[in-house]
């Protein structure tokens, strides 16, 4: 039996070495291929390790005596780690292969090595985060992840908006890290050591501050509203495959941290769950409403990440409320839904970002309103984008539906459990999730319809070309996973059960089964039946078409004889009613021209939905702080010799401190 942890560590080390070939080899194109092969090998090892751990359901750990004064470190692979390892390795390998054609070293000689190196370090640090069981190791990996991601996303740093997005990301990442420092310090006080305590071993009575710091620190990374401000611009301005790993994997580290944190505590207070559920509902709604107003395809996808993080948080909230109320079915349904949605979002969102990347590659713009008719030029990318769009909307028969369905079941289970809850939390959350789903459909039908259907709106879109096989293949893999989980969800049920049991050791003994509360087999039957019905109607229809006369004509213009592509509906016009309905939240900037006279002059209309919270709240706040704290800023003057002095002073202080500590 090969050990899961050995395979995982091998995977992480292989991923780390993937950054090296471009630094040492002169043939950059070949080096990039070697790097992609290394990432693929890393993924094979890592995925095998994760699957072994999920299949066995056991926990395996290694002690590392690293000679630091925080006690020996520990790394471990348990089912929860394994679930998060899967997307790390799947997405990183897909992105590395995609980069061969999207960011070829031959065409980007100065940036490719930097991008590949930081991407490799990012992958490895993500892997370490989910296997670390020691606060200092975790924080170190967390910092490396933040910095590596910064270098990967700002590779195109000649553009002003890329630099601005990078700085915003870096600032918020460090505010989040600051909260995590506080969190781990308090946790150490509670647990007595820097090692992570075992599941359910701490009392939650004095843990309010711990929970809140974790929620801020991890919520910042996950992009929970109102801590999401860094996310849209960072995802939009990074290279598409970096956006894919950020959205699919990096922000999930926040979810991992939160689930790991709450697993430490037994008997958690009810309001923890309510707070997480409420944060989830708000993130879901705000995310999807802002997404509708966007016409930059990557910004739009970024807002959908916020929405999906919200859905995951809703599932987590249901599970937490179930824990404190002592209802195992709620814990099972909520947690299984949240975990599966984490995995699902890590497949369809990278898929969508990679599709968006190939569209941007081909059209040279991120503006949906300049695209159109791309399905004819890029049939594969279009079909794959459609797959991702149906999956992210949570529509059957793909994977997004399965996880949202589990969360719905948890909410409805809470609603009919009359004896325990008379509170309306679940009853309000279920329709909110339905609204999120409806808005997501509106948003994705908009993107797909405007970008891929109709007539091209721009010269570049007219001359668009299909992406190469190195870009298509990773997307096919991701779409395949979407379909597989959607059509055969019962296959993942035992894996989800094992994760829940590892988080709640008490539940394993009770013999509760996910299948007893959620008949995933029936979902699978209906999903397959749907495909069968579709195949049947399509066959009938095709045979009918073959017989009858089929005429090609122009789209009917209601009598108008000279339609142009400029008369088509645009993304802005499609979303106009919804943006208007939610304008209180969105604060759209619109400039409507005044049209006067019988022969009006040419006029232009402009509309834009900015990040309202950032512009309306955070930037004024930071500007205010900036002027107030000018005295403190004198410490940072850019004079290197004084910085060295700071280090010397710190060292001396530490020496004196440890001297007296040893004495006492």
């Amino acid at each position, binding site marked *: 039996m090969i050990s899961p942890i050995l395979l995982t560590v091998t995977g992480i080390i292989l991923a780390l070495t993937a950054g090296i070939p471009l630094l040492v080899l002169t043939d950059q194109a070949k080096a990039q291929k070697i790097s992609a092969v290394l990432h693929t090998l890393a993924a094979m090892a890592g995925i095998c390790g994760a699957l072994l751990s999920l299949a066995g359901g056991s926990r395996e750990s290694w002690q590392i005596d690293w000679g630091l004064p925080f006690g020996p470190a520990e790394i471990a692979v348990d089912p929860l780690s394994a679930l998060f390892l899967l997307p790390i390795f799947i997405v990183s390998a897909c992105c590395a292969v995609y980069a061969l054609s999207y960011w070829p070293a031959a065409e980007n000689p100065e940036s490719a090595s930097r991008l590949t190196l930081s991407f490799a370090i990012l992958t490895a640090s993500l892997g370490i985060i989910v296997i670390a069981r020691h606060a200092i190791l975790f924080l170190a990996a967390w910092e490396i992840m933040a910095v590596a991601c910064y270098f990967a996303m700002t590779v195109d740093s000649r553009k002003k908006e890329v630099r601005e997005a990078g700085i915003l990301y870096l600032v918020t990442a460090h505010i989040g890290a600051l909260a995590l420092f506080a969190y781990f310090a308090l946790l150490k006080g509670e647990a007595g050591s820097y090692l992570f305590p075992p599941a359910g071993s701490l009392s939650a009575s004095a843990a309010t501050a711990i929970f809140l710091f974790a929620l801020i620190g991890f919520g910042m990374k996950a992009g929970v509203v109102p801590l999401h401000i860094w996310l849209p611009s960072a995802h939009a301005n990074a290279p598409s495959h970096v956006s894919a790993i950020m959205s699919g994997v990096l922000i999930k580290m926040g979810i991992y941290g939160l689930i790991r944190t709450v697993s430490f505590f037994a008997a958690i207070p009810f309001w923890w769950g309510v707070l997480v559920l409420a944060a989830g509902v708000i993130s879901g709604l705000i995310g999807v409403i802002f997404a509708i107003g966007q016409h930059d395809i990557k910004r739009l996808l970024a807002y959908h990440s916020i929405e999906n993080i919200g859905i995951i948080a809703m599932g987590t909230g249901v599970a937490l409320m179930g824990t404190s109320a002592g209802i195992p079915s709620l814990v099972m349904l909520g947690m299984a839904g949240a975990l599966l949605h984490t995995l699902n979002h890590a497949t369809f969102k990278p898929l969508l970002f990679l599709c968006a990347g190939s569209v941007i590659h081909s059209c040279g713009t991120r503006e949906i309103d300049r695209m159109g008719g791309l399905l004819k030029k890029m049939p594969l990318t279009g079909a794959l984008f459609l797959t991702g769009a149906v999956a992210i909307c949570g529509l059957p028969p793909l994977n997004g539906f399965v996880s949202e369905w589990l969360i719905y079941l948890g909410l409805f289970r809470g609603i009919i459990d009359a004896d325990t809850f008379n509170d309306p939390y679940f009853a309000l959350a279920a329709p909110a999730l339905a609204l999120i789903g409806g808005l997501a459909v509106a948003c994705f039908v908009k993107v797909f319809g405007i970008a891929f259907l*109709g007539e091209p709106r721009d010269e570049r879109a007219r001359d668009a070309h299909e992406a190469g096989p190195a870009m298509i293949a990773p997307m096919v893999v991701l779409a395949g996973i979407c379909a597989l989980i959607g059509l055969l969800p019962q296959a993942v049920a035992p894996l989800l059960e094992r994760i829940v049991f590892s988080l709640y050791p008490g539940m394993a003994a009770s013999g509760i089964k996910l299948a007893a509360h959620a008949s995933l087999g029936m979902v699978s039957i*209906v999903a397959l039946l749907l495909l069968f019905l579709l195949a049947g109607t399509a066959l009938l229809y095709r045979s009918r078409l073959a017989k009858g006369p089929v005429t090609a004509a122009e789209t009917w213009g209601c009598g108008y004889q000279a339609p142009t592509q400029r008369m088509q509906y645009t993304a802005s016009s499609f979303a106009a009613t919804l943006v208007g309905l939610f304008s209180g939240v969105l604060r759209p900037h619109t400039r409507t021209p005044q049209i006067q006279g019988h022969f009006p002059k040419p006029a232009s209309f402009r509309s834009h939905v900015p990040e309202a919270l950032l512009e309306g709240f955070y930037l004024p706040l930071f500007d205010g702080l900036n002027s107030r704290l000018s005295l403190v800023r004198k410490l940072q003057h850019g004079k290197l010799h004084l910085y060295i002095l700071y280090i010397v002073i710190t060292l001396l202080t530490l020496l004196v401190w440890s001297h007296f500590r040893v004495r006492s």
Partner: protein
Amino acid sequence: MPVFVNTLVHLLLTLLFPPLLIGVINRTKAFFAGRTGAPLLQPYYDMIRLWRKGSVFSRTTTWVFQAGPLVTLAATLAAALLMPLGNHPSPLAFNGDMILFAYLFGLGRFFTVAAALDTGSSFEGMGGAREATFSCLAEPALFFALVVLARISSSLSLSGMLNNFPLTVWFGFGAALLLMVGALFIILLAENCRIPFDDPNTHLELTMIHEVMVLDHSGPGLAAVLYGASLKLFLLGALFVHITVPFRSGNVILDWLAFAGSMVLLAVVIGTVESTMARLKLTRVPQLLISASILSAFAMLLVLRQTP
């Protein structure tokens, strides 16, 4: 054998009955207008005739345009297997099927709107945008109603919620159910694009939703669109009828007849509404839909305060 027979009746009703509802509605409208009106079976003739015709496709369109009506029809047919009809559980009843039911309609909507956008026509773009916008607003109302039904019946499946819906439930939860029925009727009219939301008779008004979306479909594709739309009316109508006509005799034949009779009655009611009301101004539509959500939210509040 009864299970087999009932499933057979369920499937036959699902496949054959829906166009009749459209016929009844049109006949009712003709009655109010003082006309003789088309035969009750006219929708069947229309669909058969369309199926036999040739097709015209715009050069702008792709396979998505042809897939639109087919996916919508397949999704609606799948949803038909989840909705209980008469006094019998659906062929595929399981916990959480009401969510799948709602989401299958979502899938249909996704592809209908995508097919509309595929033509590149601004008319169909308008229709698509309106459909997507208004159905978003109808979604919470439907789910509040599902919450009410789940809470009353302590069941997580449509069959559990809607079968065994005796008159006594109305005595226990009358106020809440009344509010919910109001909301459900609004959803029924909105989702099926009836007056006051949409006018299924006109084809070129700019205030329209569904008809303008399917403007470019022709021949067999249009037949699939019309059939799918009547099936959707049938299914949402069944949901409505289960609650408003709490009559269950226990006799198999009587129950099926009662169900079919109340469906026809519902069609007459819809026809009456269409004949006596004008279409709303487009800007009023969201308000009515939001008020449906508010109605069913109040129903939920009443039921939550009242332990069954």
